[in-house]
């Protein structure tokens, strides 16, 4: 009993003791902030299938950071502006040319990132400073003023998501319908991307721009396997994100590891655990469980068979009048269209 108590105390101390250092307290606050912020915005990216766009935005803040550094402007502002420019540039490319979405993203992402790296290596050589922290994150080295800025940004983003929740839900679920219903979907999309850019600049010192995408996408993807509601998904995602960043922070403290990659790998481990254990916990077949990730849920397997609420046999139907085409277009369960004769026995499901 005594031994058990001792080891429990030891375990708690493992977490509490480092908090004697002020830098560790700042890092912990930062981990909680960044973990929840990235998880909320990442949930939108995942349900809208825009994870890659998150990557574009996050990598595109790099030249902005460099230019801001050159001009002695606030690097948060520089990074934000450059992330927005990339999003607008991408929208322009997609609207004005026939380039496909993924190719356009590849072009914008690599151009901005290339320019950013070029500028940063130049600055580092000339000014003898280290900007690697922005690329790969150094959560243990965050100073108080940067932490306050990050907290301010997080507050703005979370408030905006709270205020625009129902509009963002409509945009994400059915953008075409939302536009038809009179919602300014374009403005909402760019607002969402601006919030994503803010999330990236608020997180870059903790996990680095190269890996903010991990903290946005991995917890959200993990949560998407476990729930049927966006709000619940966001909550779970925040839990997973905060867990990842806090555990990652302590690992990086004790093992002297780079914080960004460590946090990323912890969230990847949680993802792997849910992928492997999820089907057992939810008692569903692995195929349909993971189907949610690739967008191909097997209807019957998802959570027990869907009971057919309609009678199996159709009421008799008069034959189509002679001389008139009596074909009907049928959409099968995979969404493919096919032409079938319109006969009384033709019950499609």
């Amino acid at each position: 009993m005594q031994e058990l108590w001792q080891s429990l105390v030891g375990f708690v101390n493992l977490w509490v003791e480092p908090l004697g250092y002020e830098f560790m307290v700042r890092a912990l606050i930062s981990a909680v902030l960044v973990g929840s912020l990235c998880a909320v915005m990442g949930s939108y990216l995942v349900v809208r299938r825009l994870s890659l766009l998150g990557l574009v935005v996050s990598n595109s803040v790099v030249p902005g950071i460099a230019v801001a550094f050159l001009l002695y402007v606030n690097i948060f502002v520089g990074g934000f502006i450059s992330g927005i420019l990339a999003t607008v540039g991408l929208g322009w490319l997609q609207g004005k040319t026939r380039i496909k979405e993924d190719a356009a993203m590849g072009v914008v992402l690599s151009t901005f990132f290339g320019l950013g790296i070029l500028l940063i290596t130049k600055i580092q050589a000339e000014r003898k400073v280290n900007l690697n922290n922005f690329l790969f994150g150094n959560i243990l080295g965050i100073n108080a003023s940067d932490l306050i800025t990050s907290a301010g940004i997080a507050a703005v983003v979370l408030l905006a998501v709270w205020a625009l929740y129902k509009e963002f839900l409509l945009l994400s679920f059915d953008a075409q319908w939302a536009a038809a219903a009179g919602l300014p979907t374009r403005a909402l999309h760019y607002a969402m991307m601006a919030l994503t850019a803010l999330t990236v600049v608020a997180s870059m010192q903790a996990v680095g721009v190269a890996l903010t995408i991990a903290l946005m996408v991995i917890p959200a993807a993990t949560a998407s396997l476990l729930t049927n509601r966006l709000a619940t998904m966001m909550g779970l995602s925040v839990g997973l994100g905060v867990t990842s960043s806090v555990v990652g922070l302590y690992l990086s403290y004790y093992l002297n590891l780079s914080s960004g990659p460590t946090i990323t790998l912890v969230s990847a481990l949680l993802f792997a655990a849910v992928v492997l254990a999820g089907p057992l916990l939810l008692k569903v077949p692995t195929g349909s469980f993971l189907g949610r990730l690739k967008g191909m849920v097997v209807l019957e397997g998802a959570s027990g068979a869907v009971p057919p609420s309609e009678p199996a046999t159709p009421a008799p139907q008069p034959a189509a009048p002679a001389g008139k085409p009596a074909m009907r277009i049928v959409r099968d369960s995979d969404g493919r269209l096919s032409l079938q004769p319109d006969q009384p026995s033709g019950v499609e499901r």
Partner: protein
Amino acid sequence: MLSVRDLNVSYGLRPALERVSFGVEAGRLVGVVGPNGAGKSTLVKAIMGVVPRRSGAVLLEGEPLEKVRERVAYIPQRAGIDWDFPALVREVVAMGCVPRMGWLARPARADRARVEAAIERVGLTDLAHRRIGELSGGQQQRAFIARALVQQARLFLFDEPFAGVDQYTERAILGIFEQLRDAGCALLIVNHDLGDVVRRYDDLLILRGEVVAYGPREDVFTQANLNRAYLGPVAAV
């Protein structure tokens, strides 16, 4: 109620709709039929303004439709939706409240009651807590009709509401359409099917890049009009 005047739409240089003019009175159930590529979906989208109009005007109760969008319910083809989206049937139906709600507003008790009533009307009460993607095609279609009911619209635009639904659901949907019509709404329904359903419409708009015929069903549903719409290659549309 709805007045479409000289509507022209093109995709690039290719005209999709030319000089389309027609009007729909309140309390009419109008079917839009025509071959593939005749511009049926395009017509509905152009009315809603989700595809750009090259020229033409769309008025709802005398006002440009853009200004009174909340009076219109648009039910797009099902294919455009991500069925893996984490949203319950009840949440999808409740989305119909949003167009009439202000920014920052939260659903009131009356809104929630309307949502439940709409779910019951389409017979999805038992499935309201399911994820939308778990429903069958016909049930999903009914969920979107419930969302449209919640919108309290005056004009309903349906794009292929009967695609992939069984005959029981088809009949149930038609019943709801007729109730809406009898309540003084106007309905415009795009339909591939020239079978049984056609006989339930009051008016027919036969389309092939332009209006082939429009009027009461018994007047325009003739072999001659159908031949003009369906026979021969669909050129230039």
